[in-house]
């Protein structure tokens, strides 16, 4: 119990520190929302008129920065996130984020989980049969693919499965713009079709890391006494591999996985850009480009909370899976 409380306290402290940094760093960036708006309107409109417009959307550059900070803390906690003052001028931040979040969670999230499961499985099997044919080929292939840049893999996939094959798989958007979102099989099929290439990009580039670490952990674990003991007892190979070795080999990977789940929400910016996939990643890019403080603050807060929550859950999970971590709690 003390362990859990300490973790929770740590969580709150980290959250506050992160929120504070999230507020001050964007305000230290060069430029201002006004400048960004002047750029986007090509300096055709007078700066005074634009200043006035931004003011009516709630941009208060002259207010005391600490008052702004207190307002910000209150707004973040109460969910009054305000309206965008960047490229989506005037749109409530909650609407923008609400539209983008499900797509990122769905596509990037599923791809990340798939990469983890696939990577761990391949790593387990490769280590079990180390020196075998599988072990000779798969890990080295995945080392190469994990070293490839996201956007390059994305381009290659577009080229192979969309351009050369005359649009076999769609290369942009999250669904055909002629469809209206609903729960019909047709629409869901369309969404899945559009997710194939971007998700494949993420799986291909992310899976290698999991394969390598899992294989190494497995090899260490397989040398443990309790594995030899299992063999001596005459347990089946399958049982030893999954229940004795893999279960313990997986533990160190879990916190890494939790972190990567937390980072899911920040989206794979490049993947979303190349595939014109309207998730959170490109939102962040736009927000930063346009000094869109309200949108930036909310996005940073979401990323922070996502990572912290994922780590917290992982801590609890490890405490449950591995009694040793609680011992000195």
């Amino acid at each position: 119990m003390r362990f859990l409380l300490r973790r929770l306290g740590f969580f709150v402290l980290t959250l506050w520190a992160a929120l504070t940094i999230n507020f001050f760093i964007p305000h230290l960036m060069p430029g201002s929302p006004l400048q960004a708006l002047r750029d986007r309107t090509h300096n055709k409109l007078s700066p005074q008129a634009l200043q006035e417009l931004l003011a009516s959307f709630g941009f208060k550059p002259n207010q005391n920065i600490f008052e702004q900070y207190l307002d910000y803390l209150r707004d973040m906690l109460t969910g009054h996130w305000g309206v965008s003052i960047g490229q989506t001028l005037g749109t409530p931040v909650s609407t923008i984020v609400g539209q983008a979040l499900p797509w990122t969670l769905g596509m990037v999230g599923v791809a990340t989980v798939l990469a983890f499961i696939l990577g761990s499985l391949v790593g387990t099997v490769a280590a079990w049969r180390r020196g075998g044919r599988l072990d000779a080929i798969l890990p080295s292939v995945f080392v190469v693919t994990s070293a490839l840049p996201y956007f390059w893999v994305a381009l290659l996939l577009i080229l192979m499965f969309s351009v050369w094959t005359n649009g076999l798989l769609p290369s942009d958007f999250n669904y055909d713009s002629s469809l209206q979102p609903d729960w019909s099989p047709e629409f869901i099929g369309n969404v899945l079709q559009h997710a194939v290439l971007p998700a494949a990009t993420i799986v291909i580039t992310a899976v290698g890391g999991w394969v390598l670490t899992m294989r190494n952990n497995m090899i260490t674990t397989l040398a443990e006494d309790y594995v030899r003991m299992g063999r001596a007892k005459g347990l089946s190979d399958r049982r030893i591999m999954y229940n004795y070795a893999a279960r313990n080999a997986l533990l160190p990977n879990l916190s890494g996985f939790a972190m990567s789940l937390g980072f899911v929400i920040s989206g794979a910016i490049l993947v979303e850009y190349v595939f014109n996939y309207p998730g959170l990643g490109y939102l962040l890019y736009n927000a930063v480009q346009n000094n869109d403080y309200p949108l930036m603050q909310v996005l940073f807060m979401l990323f922070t909370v996502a990572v912290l929550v994922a780590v917290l859950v992982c801590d609890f999970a490890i405490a449950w899976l591995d009694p040793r971590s609680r011992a000195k709690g």
Partner: protein
Amino acid sequence: MRRTKAIVAVAVVIALSVVMAACGTKKNNTTSNSSAPAKTSYKKGGTVTIVNVQGQTWPCQFNPFNPANNAVSLGFVYEPLVFVNILKNQAETPMLASAYQWGADKKSIDFTIRDGVKWSDGQPMTADDVVFTFNLMKQTPATDLYSLWSGAGLQSVTASGNKVTLTFANPAGPYFFNFANQVGIVPKHIWSTGDAAKKPDTWEDPNPVGTGPFKVDPCSANNIQYTANADYWQPGKPYIQKVEYPAYLDNGPGNLDLASGKGQWGSQFIPNIAQFYLNKSKENHTWSPPVTNVALYPNLDPSHKATSNLAVRQAMALAIDRAQVAKIGEGGQQPAANQTGVVTPTFNKYFDDGALKSSGYDKPDVAKATQLMQSAGYSPSNPLKLTVISVTGYTDWDASLAVVKQNLKPIGIDLTVSDLAQQTYDDKLYKGDFDLAYYGSAGGPTPYTELRQILYSKNSAKIGEDASTNYERYLNPDVDKLFDDFATADDAGQVAIIKKIQAAMLKDIPVIPTTESVDWFQYNTSDIGGWPTEQDPYAQPAAFNVPDTGQVLTRLYSNAAQK
């Protein structure tokens, strides 16, 4: 709309175009403009898809007073009083005003409001709505985007019968483009109630009611679909019945859809356009008319010794091979500019070719430039070191500046290109913290707009303070006077004034234009006809020009629907 912003996007397109070119079939691309006489009316039907990169999903807001969103409502749903065509010597097309009459000294103007125009909800459009629109901008200054009340001296807007009179404190000729062409008229019965009345500047206007050729039906984050307004006041129009406007986040995907024909109306930069787009189909065309200048802005403040020295600026203007910058830097997709600052051929009417030729700036003259640099105390062995600021990710600018750097080297200028993040660049540009800046200004219906932005002293500021447009800090009372006189001059007088301003450009070299930036425009003719072309430039063709989109939308027709 965006130029090549993210390096990644450029890499995407280049990588794809290289590979695609290698395996694509080369087709001869000739213009297939049918020489058949233009029909006056067409059958209805067909869909056009616009590819104009926004870098955002649609917020589904259509408030014409919100500059972040109004490009999807003006022209489509909301219409101006008079359409002014920049590309055809300000040729006017009456829209919601069937006629107008200037008063004495151009200090007042009477618009006759068109009869029989209906809002898309069935109510009639009247002079009251026009008066309401202009008074709205007075009551809520944030909606007065063109500073008509605060800057242009608009004093009152009144209606009598079907006439609307605008009165100004000063002659208002130069503002005609803004108040007649850029302001979309909104319906009083919608905007005088509820949220619209309380906060007209921030209201979302999700279901816009206008007089225009199209209605929003429906809008989602991914796509705006417009359907034809069946009761549009121009009988038989629009011919096209549906417009799809997908939200492209970046140039790469947009350009792919243009090349494959999935989108027909393109409005952004396509690198290596011949291979990537034009060779893909003989129905793919491009025509990008020049509208403004991209120029080197030397800092004229005396604190910047080198760039405020006239001889140095003259030498630079003589040494830069503008044709080469256009060909190599912009891949031939932008034409070369000239030292008068008048964009040709768009504004040929004002262009003083003779003055340019006799000044010697019409072609590069390295010998004379070297001499001038020597008189200023510099030579290739003792070069002047200058830094030019540009924007990170504007790859075409980088390529252009590489050419400029080479051009300047032999005359004794060692140019360093400093690529800055957009906002850092803005900050330095506005505050005058640079030796040289590479910048593309905004334009207007005549060269007056652009030249006034660049040269008028009231648009400048002290070094360290934000200048609105005169970033090089050019201060010349004689030139200011010319701009002040422009408003009251007649047509011939205005041409004469612009010619005198060109003389100042040639004498003082306040900025050094290199290339002319264009309205990016690509179009596919396999089904859709009626596009604006070089032969018939009836409106600015790029989909980000408001309200020009309205003109294009009422002229497009589908070939399939004619059968």
